[in-house]
């Protein structure tokens, strides 16, 4: 977690930055003058928390998308580090290469072995390149599936952490079957014999997210988004312009509260006030508080029951009208 002075601020977080600047100034004055102004500083720090609360209470859909992409936001490996112990990262799809945009491996949560898998974004320019901005290639999805099968073999639950702007749209990705890789994962995840919990921790963009997103429970952290296309691409296709991303975000109803209301996710996991980037430990603890009882609950179900439930749950998704049409005669106009 960055120190307060190194924090980055989104436009709508500016009021917090101003408070920080003021606190910093007061501290410097105190240093120089040796006068005690700690009361005043404490007061301002209280205001910071209040500001964080105030700002997140009134976010638009687009601002939530921005928050999910906050440069200081914790990524998959951070959650793994904070939630689990004895994590051992496993590499490669045994076929093409090791995709750095997808990470995974065995770890322990409170003594119990689980398989942790997720997209990984980079924390600085160099790492962002290496991680391909969290956009996995087919080998990333195949590595994820290999690890899931490994977990299944040893009867260990799987937790996936989803954070991707989409599967990578590249030339080699197509050559190696990006569509097939995602399709295979979706199909196999429905059939896995072990409990699967999927958590959207940042961006949940389309097939790239769903490729590790089919489970007994699918949940979203509070300030994340999940839908079929990014608001930017949606704007470019439906509005024929890149400028309508705010509108697209609104229309897509991509926020966690909407997704829960639609019955497309099972729960919302709260974040620290103002967003997960304010306190990594607290964010991880809040997630862990959801995971522990849920794992326990799922482990009591039989593999067959879990599979049936997954098919049924996803089978109910969608909206349509059922109209009465007159009984159609078989087409026989030879």
């Amino acid at each position, binding site marked *: 977690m960055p120190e307060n002075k190194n924090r980055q601020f989104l436009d709508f977080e500016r009021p917090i930055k101003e408070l920080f600047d003021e606190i910093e100034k007061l501290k410097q004055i105190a240093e120089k003058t040796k006068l005690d102004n700690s009361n005043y500083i404490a007061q301002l720090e209280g205001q910071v928390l209040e500001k964080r609360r105030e700002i997140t209470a009134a976010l638009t859909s687009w601002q939530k998308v921005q928050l999910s992409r906050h440069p200081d936001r914790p990524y998959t490996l951070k959650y793994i580090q904070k939630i689990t112990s004895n994590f051992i990262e496993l590499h490669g799809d045994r076929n093409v290469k090791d995709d750095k945009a997808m990470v995974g491996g065995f770890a322990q949560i409170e003594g119990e072995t689980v398989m942790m898998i997720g997209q990984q974004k980079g924390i600085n320019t160099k790492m962002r390149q290496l991680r391909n901005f969290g956009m996995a290639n087919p080998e990333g999805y195949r590595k994820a599936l290999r690890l899931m099968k490994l977990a299944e073999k040893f009867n260990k639950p799987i937790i996936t952490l989803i954070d991707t702007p989409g*599967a990578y*749209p*590249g*030339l080699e*990705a*197509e*050559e*190696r*079957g*990006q*569509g*097939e890789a*995602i*399709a*295979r994962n*979706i*199909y196999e995840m*429905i*059939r896995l014999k072990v409990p699967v919990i999927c958590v959207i921790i940042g961006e949940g963009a*389309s*097939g790239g997210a*769903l*490729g590790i*997103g*089919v489970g007994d429970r699918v949940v979203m952290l509070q300030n994340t988004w999940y*839908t*079929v*296309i990014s608001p930017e691409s949606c704007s*470019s*296709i*439906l*509005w*024929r312009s890149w400028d*309508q991303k705010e*509108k697209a975000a609104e*229309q*897509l*109803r*991509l926020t966690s509260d909407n*997704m829960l209301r*639609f019955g*497309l996710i099972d729960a919302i996991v709260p974040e620290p006030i103002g967003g997960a980037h304010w306190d990594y430990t607290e964010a991880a603890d809040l997630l862990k508080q959801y995971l522990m009882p849920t794992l326990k609950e799922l482990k009591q179900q039989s593999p067959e029951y879990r599979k049936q439930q*997954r*098919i049924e749950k*996803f*089978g109910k*998704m*969608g*909206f*349509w*009208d*059922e*109209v009465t*049409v007159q009984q*159609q005669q*078989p*087409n*026989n*106009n*030879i």
Partner: protein
Amino acid sequence: MKQEEDFDANLAGEDGTEAESKTSWFKRIKKGITTSTADKKETPEGLWTKCPECNYICTVTELRELLFVCPKCNHHHRIGSEEYFDILFDKNYFDILFENIRSKDFLGFTDLKPYSLRLQDSWKKTDITDSIRIGSGKVNALPLVIACMDFEFIGGSLGSVMGERISRAVDHCLEHKTPLMIICKSGGARMMESAFSLMQLAKVSGKLSQLTDACIPYISLLTDPSFGGISASFGMLGDLNIAEPGALIGFAGPRIIKETIKKDLPAGFQRSEFLLEHGFLDFIVDRKEMKEKLTKVLTLFKN
């Protein structure tokens, strides 16, 4: 740099400009079929068609007899469910199932136009009720359920109705122990249904899993074009994945890839032949041989 065809406009429920040559061509054929004799006299030019690949000119009637395959260059024209059912089902005799399931604008989605209006327009413009039709009939006396997409209905987009109709088709196949074939022809997801359209990938995959457990064959036939969510789910999950020659098939559209890699795409990229070469298709089948090949396959699965 050369322009890549993309299906964005079709997915938005409009007629494309880049895809114009192919889509308008296809509609003219459709019109030729559906209009009355009197109309035909008024629009005789609609009865002549030009191949977008080699410019070969012939009449719609002639082309129809050739199963909409160009006699000069073997270009497979884009056709719809009506034509595929006619080509594949014995004596063009089949039941249409689940037509009562219709799209609705649950989210109140509005882009340049409300989704509800786009639906109204599509119902008015076409004689189909959504982007997929389910036909149950026989192929050389072998029972088969065919779920066939129609590109002209909002770009063949994958929405709740497609998901639900396929799901019910699977239930029908399970009940009657009938094999299933999905004929794919789609630009991708129906964005106006947002996350609901994404979840259809998981929904249909779950249903296909039931076919697997019941040992019922599922064949995916990919035709031009098959993109996005289609290839990232049931399009690539067939016991056999097969395709028509020259069909564009992929996850990301050519335009997006070109913008990402900032280079022209190699010739033949994302065509059926490219997919066969890279190991994602079992075989490519000419439309003229499709029924016979399908019969062979269904017989082999059976015995």
